């Protein structure tokens, strides 16, 4: 459909008559609309291009960077194994973190003062200490608890016992640290989502005889998801990068894979570029996934559905004003 250009108010009646077809009365052509020219944008774009070009050439022509090493190591076994470990750790830690977050948020909003306090204390503790410290804590758990065992109290019956150092591998320590820490942050995100759902929704569900649990699962949580997804996508992307902290406790992740290679061949910069490329690829895929997930959960909302991602990029890159409606 062709949109009519914006008309001065006085011309609208005349144009309406004219739009009725030829011979519709007065012969008056519509005035030509001149869009506002944004000279500043063109100048800014040119400046950005110059600066970006200078930066690229500074890297590309640098004699101390061996660019041929980048494609050589991009698919090396050590790097790919590290990438897989990073993805696995991020996925598991985020999954456990989301589950913990939903649980903690429900506890925090409950009327039960015990669960409310436990949730508050948990969030206070895990959000209030640095993640790196938590990771090292978990990794060194064996220093103070030599064995981990499960036994029935007052009977002397032991169901399970194992040395802590066997149980807490670098992977286990990293997963524990990241997931428990993430749970605290997700709890606040989920809580915000649940509070964002109108009170009337809960009342309507109650009035239909639904129990608080059913109301949460079927009515409030599905609506809260729309509010929860954008910050959760953010968290997941953060998580993917934060897994690199686990290299400190000897977990064989992407960064550690790169480190192992550059410790031998001293091509530090080149291998950090390799690792960064993979981090960027992974976070880009997540960004695209988040876009489509958000679109899926926007159903039933009054906001119009966004078109495809490519369309969104195209629109944001257009320098000229869109005349088409």
């Amino acid at each position, binding site marked *: 459909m062709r949109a009519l250009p914006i008309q001065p108010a006085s011309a609208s009646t005349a144009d309406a008559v004219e739009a009725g077809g030829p011979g519709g009365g007065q012969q008056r052509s519509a005035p030509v609309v001149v869009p506002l020219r944004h000279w500043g944008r063109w100048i800014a774009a040119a400046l950005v291009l110059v600066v970006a070009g200078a930066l690229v050439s500074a890297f590309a022509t640098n004699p101390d960077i061996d660019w041929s090493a980048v494609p050589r190591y991009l698919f090396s076994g050590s790097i790919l194994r590290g990438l897989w470990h990073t993805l696995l750790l991020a996925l598991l830690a985020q999954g456990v973190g989301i589950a913990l977050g939903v649980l903690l948020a429900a506890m925090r909003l409950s009327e039960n003062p015990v669960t409310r306090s436990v949730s508050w204390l948990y969030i206070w503790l895990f959000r209030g200490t640095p993640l790196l410290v938590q990771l090292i804590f978990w990794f060194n758990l064996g220093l103070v608890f030599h064995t981990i065992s499960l036994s029935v109290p007052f009977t002397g019956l032991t169901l399970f016992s194992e040395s802590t150092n066997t149980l807490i591998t670098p992977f286990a320590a990293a997963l524990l640290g990241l997931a428990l820490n993430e749970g605290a942050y997700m709890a606040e995100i989920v809580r915000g989502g649940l509070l964002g759902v109108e009170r009337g*929704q809960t009342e309507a569900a109650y*009035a*239909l*005889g*639904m*129990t608080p649990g059913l109301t949460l699962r079927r009515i409030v949580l599905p609506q809260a998801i729309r509010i929860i997804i954008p910050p959760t996508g953010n968290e997941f992307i953060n998580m993917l990068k934060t897994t690199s902290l686990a290299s400190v406790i000897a977990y064989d992740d992407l960064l550690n894979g790169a480190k192992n290679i550059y410790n031998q061949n001293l091509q530090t910069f080149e291998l950090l570029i390799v690792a960064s490329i993979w981090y960027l690829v992974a976070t880009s895929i997540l960004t695209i996934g988040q876009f489509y997930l958000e679109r899926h959960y926007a159903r039933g909302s009054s906001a119009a559905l966004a078109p495809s991602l490519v369309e969104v990029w195209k629109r944001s890159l257009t320098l000229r004003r869109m005349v088409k409606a």
Partner: protein
Amino acid sequence: MSDPLVVAEGVEKLFGPQIVLKGVSLTVAPREVVCIIGPSGSGKSTFLRCINHLERIDAGTLEVDGELVGYRRAGDRLHELRPHEVASRRAKIGMVFQRFNLFPHLTVAENVVEAPCRVLKRPKREVVAEAETLLERVGLAAKRDAYPASLSGGQQQRVAIARALAMRPRLMLFDEPTSALDPELVGEVLQVMRGLAEDGMTMIVVTHEMGFAREVADRVCFMDDGCVVEEGPPRQVLGDPRHPRTAAFLSKVL
């Protein structure tokens, strides 16, 4: 006359230091339609919300269908009910809200089907068939797959009525069902409510629609400042009020 369906005696409600209900008593018989009118802030919506325990009462007794709302009597003690017990009693009372409160993430049909399936655990096929009939009755069979956001206010409110009816309630509560509607949409909702009344549904309606109260109600109850000031047949309360406060209110709205 058969046993009353709703019996309220000396119901009091506080919001913090503010007394919202100061001893409200009202009895509603089966198949009766009672309209509660009164200025805003008079406590009429609060009283309605007490009937299905969306608000807890602070004094007095409130019984629906012979059962105390929110409590169980054991000797001379009242035991507060567990959440699932409260829920199963609410399931017998339908409620329609001023702001519709349809579930926006579910289609019209899913809105109607949700509670009968999940709460009453009735077989899905039977519930879906009944939902079709109900939607037809409120004139919205064609909108079954639409989301609430795409409907007009009047259509949303009619879906909300169908959703409440799908639970086969013994009593319907209406909390200013037409107050959030554009004037030209009020008629279609009142038409559905009128049909319900003719079918013998017991209804308590908080409303500002004096025409509806006059034509449909068996009894009109005027509330002001947390008290029932006057109640009686619509012709008497609306046409020849005995209390000066009723007369003053009516002179403003009629």
